[in-house]
C-alpha cells in the first residue's frame, strides 16, 4: 500500500504512540483489503462507550485508555489517548439512566458507560448515542468521505446522502478518529458505487411496512450487491428509507442502493448503473412481498404479546408523533409493555411537543441510547414481542430467545393495548 509522507510520520510516532498504533492498524487493515492507499476522512461514527464484560475488565485494569487502546486501536499496551483528530461521534450503546426502573439492565453497566462518556467527551467525541446520527447533528454532505459503523447508518449515508463510507468496525473507526485516514477501498471509489442488480417492483410500495418488506427481500436477493430499485414506488420519506436500508443490511449486506429520481447518485436508471448492464434482475411482486412477510413472521406461534418495540433504527420525530396519536386516550393491556427507542436529542423535542406525555399516559415508555438487541434486554419475563421493524424482528429472537411478530405500527400499538397479535398482510 502506498503511504504518504504524513502517513509515515504518524506511523513512526511523530504524533505519539496512540496515533502510531492507529496508523499501524490502518496499514494492516488496508493491506488486508488490498487497498492502494488511504484517503482523508473528516467524519467518524464509531463506538467506545458500549459496556461489555471484556471492557469492564480492561477498564478495571488500566482505565479507558486501556480499553480504547486494546479495542479501538487493536494495540497490546495501554497508550495515552489524545483528543480526536477529526469530528467523531459515539453511536448507540447500552441503556442509560433513563432506563433505570424500566429495563432490567445492570446499574454497573450504566455507571461504566457514564464513565466512558466522560472519557470520550473530554477528547472531543460528540455523544449522539444513536444508530441514526444523520437525524441529530451528523449529516455528511454528498461526496464526504466518512468512517462509519452501524450497518443501517452506513447504507443511509451512502445511498440517501451520497456520502462515502464502508461498513467500518470498532478498531478502524478508532484509528480513523485519531488520524483522519481510512483505506480508500469499496464505497470510497466511484466505480464501486454503481448499481449491480436491477430490482423491478411490480406491487405497490407505499407504506412504512412496504419499504421494510422490500428491503428485507432485496437484501436476501442481492446480499452484498448494490441494488437499483425501480417500479411501483411512492415517494419515500426519511423514515421509509431508514427502514428499507436497515432491513436490506440485515437480510443481506447492502451498503449502497439507488432509487432513480430519489437518491442523489441516480438521476436515472442508466446513471445508477453507469452504463453497464446489471449483473442480475430481481422482481418484487405480490408473491415476493408475502414471502418476506412470512419469513419475518416465522418466529412466532403464540399470539399473546407481552412486549412491543418501536423505533428501530431509532425513531424519527414523525414516528414519535404517530405513536403518540395511535396511543392517545388508550391504555396498554396489563402485563404488556411498549418501548419506543429514539435519539435523546429528538426526545427533547418530543417532550416539548407533548408526544412523550401522551405515550406515557397510555403506559408506554420512550427510551434512548440503545435498544433491546444492543443491550440484550427486554422487559422481565418477555416471551413474545411485536415490532414494526424488520431489522429488530430479524435479530432479537436469536439474541434473546423470544418469539417475534412483525407488522404495521398500528398493529403493534393494537397488540400493546389488547395484549394479542392480530396482524395480517393487507
Amino acid at each position, binding site marked *: 500500500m502506498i503511504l504518504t509522507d504524513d502517513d509515515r510520520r504518524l506511523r513512526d510516532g511523530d504524533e505519539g504512540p496512540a496515533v502510531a498504533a492507529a496508523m499501524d492498524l490502518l496499514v494492516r487493515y488496508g493491506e488486508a483489503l488490498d487497498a492502494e492507499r488511504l484517503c482523508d476522512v473528516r467524519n467518524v461514527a464509531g463506538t467506545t462507550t458500549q459496556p461489555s464484560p471484556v471492557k469492564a475488565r480492561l477498564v478495571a485494569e488500566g482505565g479507558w485508555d486501556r480499553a480504547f487502546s486494546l479495542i479501538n486501536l487493536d494495540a497490546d499496551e495501554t497508550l495515552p489517548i489524545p483528543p480526536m483528530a477529526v469530528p467523531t461521534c459515539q453511536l448507540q450503546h447500552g441503556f442509560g439512566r433513563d432506563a433505570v426502573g424500566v429495563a432490567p439492565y445492570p446499574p454497573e453497566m450504566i455507571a461504566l458507560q457514564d464513565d466512558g462518556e466522560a472519557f470520550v467527551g473530554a477528547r472531543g467525541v460528540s455523544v449522539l448515542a444513536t444508530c441514526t446520527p444523520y437525524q441529530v447533528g451528523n449529516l455528511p454532505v454528498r461526496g464526504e468521505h466518512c468512517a462509519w459503523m452501524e450497518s443501517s447508518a452506513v447504507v443511509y449515508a451512502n445511498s440517501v446522502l451520497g456520502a462515502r463510507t464502508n461498513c467500518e468496525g470498532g478498531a478502524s473507526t478508532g484509528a480513523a478518529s485519531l488520524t483522519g485516514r481510512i483505506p480508500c477501498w469499496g464505497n470510497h471509489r466511484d466505480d464501486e458505487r454503481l448499481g449491480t442488480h436491477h430490482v423491478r417492483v411490480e406491487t405497490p410500495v407505499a407504506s412504512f411496512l412496504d419499504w421494510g418488506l422490500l428491503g428485507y427481500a432485496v437484501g436476501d436477493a442481492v446480499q452484498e450487491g448494490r441494488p437499483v430499485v425501480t417500479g411501483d414506488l411512492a415517494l419515500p420519506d426519511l423514515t421509509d428509507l431508514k427502514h428499507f436500508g436497515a432491513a436490506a443490511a440485515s437480510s443481506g*449486506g447492502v451498503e449502497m442502493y439507488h432509487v432513480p429520481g430519489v437518491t442523489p447518485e441516480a438521476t436515472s436508471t442508466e446513471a445508477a448503473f453507469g452504463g453497464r448492464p446489471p449483473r442480475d434482475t430481481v422482481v418484487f411482486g405480490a408473491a415476493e412481498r408475502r414471502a418476506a412477510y412470512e419469513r419475518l413472521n416465522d418466529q412466532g406461534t403464540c399470539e399473546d404479546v407481552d412486549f412491543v418495540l418501536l423505533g428501530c433504527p431509532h425513531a424519527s420525530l414523525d414516528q414519535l408523533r404517530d405513536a403518540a396519536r395511535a396511543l392517545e386516550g388508550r391504555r396498554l393491556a396489563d402485563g404488556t409493555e411498549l418501548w419506543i427507542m429514539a435519539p435523546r436529542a429528538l426526545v427533547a423535542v418530543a417532550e416539548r411537543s407533548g408526544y412523550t406525555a401522551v405515550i406515557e399516559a397510555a403506559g408506554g415508555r420512550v427510551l434512548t441510547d440503545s435498544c433491546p438487541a444492543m443491550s440484550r434486554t427486554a422487559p422481565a419475563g418477555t416471551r413474545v414481542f411485536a415490532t414494526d421493524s424488520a431489522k429488530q424482528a430479524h435479530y432479537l429472537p436469536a439474541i434473546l430467545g423470544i418469539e417475534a411478530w412483525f407488522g404495521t405500527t398500528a398493529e403493534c400499538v393494537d397488540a400493546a393495548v389488547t395484549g394479542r397479535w392480530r396482524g395480517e398482510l393487507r
Partner: protein
Amino acid sequence: MTDLQRPATRAGVVLRGRTVVPGVVTGEALVSPETISGWGGIDPATGTIIEARHPLAGVCFTGKILVFPGAKGSSGWSGFFQTTRLLGTAPIGMVFAVTTTKAALGAVVTRVPALADLDADPVAVLRTGDRIRLDATAGVVEQLDRPDRTALTDTTAGEDR
C-alpha cells in the same frame, strides 16, 4: 495410516489466494456452508456460533481454521472476533471466499493467518475435519489429510509460524 484416512482422490488439494493476514498455521478445518454473523451470530465467551438458523449453530470454532463464504450482518463483526482473541476462544486461521471490510478487519484484529479470494471455492473443496496447512504469507492453503470420520481422533492443532 490407513488408506481410509488418506483418500488419494482428495488429499493434497492446493488452493491459492490473496494474503489478508500473513502467517502460517496447521490445523483442523471447520467449514461453514453459510456466511457468518459476528454480532448476534457468535458468542465470544465460548467461541461458538449461536445464530439459530445457521447450519453450524452450537458448534465451537476455537482452535480451528475457520473456512467460510464471508461475513454478514452488523458492523460489530470485527469487534466480536477481536473479543474471541482477548478471551482465548479465537479460531487459529481464517479462509474466506469474499472480501468485505467486516471480514478483512475481523481477520486483522483476530490476528490469525487469513486468506481470501481463492482460485476455487474453499467451502466447496474443503470439509470440516480436514487437516490443512494455511500459509497465508505465500497465499496457499493445502489439504494434508481427510481422516475417515469414524477414525477421527486427532483434534490437536498447532501453530508453526
